[in-house]
């Protein structure tokens, strides 16, 4: 069990740098040396669009897509959640969301209810909204 837990909620989409920066902060938790930090990352609102698979960052702009960063979270065993209500609203099915199976990640993006997100916020030591 980690010493500290941080809950990230990401609502921004691909137009802005925010979602990537948010994930970088979450990844930054994993290299804190003074104590053990466990981040949890949730996507809600239009932010659920960040977990779509087949984002072609490299082929288009020569950069890592947000999806690549989500995969890095999964590879690092970070729990990644997406709000099911917003997925449904935008027509995103579970088949359309990314995973990191090619990197042998056990974790996958988990569609959840708002109740689960609220629970994550309640249980965390710190909450960060992006």
């Amino acid at each position, binding site marked *: 069990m980690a010493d*500290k837990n*941080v809950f990230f909620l990401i609502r921004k989409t691909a137009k802005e*740098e925010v979602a990537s*920066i*948010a994930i970088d902060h979450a990844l*930054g938790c994993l290299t*804190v040396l*003074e104590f053990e*930090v466990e981040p949890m990352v949730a996507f809600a609102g239009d932010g659920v669009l960040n977990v779509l698979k087949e984002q072609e960052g490299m082929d288009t702009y020569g950069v890592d897509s947000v999806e690549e960063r989500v995969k890095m979270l999964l590879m690092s065993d970070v729990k990644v959640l997406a709000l099911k209500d917003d997925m449904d609203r935008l027509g995103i099915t579970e088949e359309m969301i990314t995973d990191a199976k090619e990197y042998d990640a056990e974790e996958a993006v988990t569609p959840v209810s708002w109740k689960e997100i609220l629970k994550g916020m309640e249980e965390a030591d710190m909450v960060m909204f*992006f």
Partner: protein
Amino acid sequence: MGNIAIGILTRPYGSRNIAFVLKLSKAAVERGHSVKLWLSADSTTVLKKNQHKYKKTFHFEDDIKELLEKGVEIVACESCVGMRGVTEEDLIEGVPMKTMTWFMEAALTADASLIIGEE
């Protein structure tokens, strides 16, 4: 007294968030608290020195220097600065560059922490 950590990634002059954070930090220091500020993404460019001062417009360099003098720790995200073509020599004296890990540690050990997660 306590300590406060604030992260910000907003654009420096295009948004008023920087003004808010600097004023809040000043108030916190005057209340006897210690403050750590983390600037990432576009906000880092407000840490460049030699910002021209125009009459009666926002000018943050002097505010930043004042906060540094009062003991506020102001840190720039290393990779965010680098990708914007800015070097440590370009930054206001006393502002170091560090990684995201520094901020997460600061935020998690603070009595109050806040991230302004918008551009």
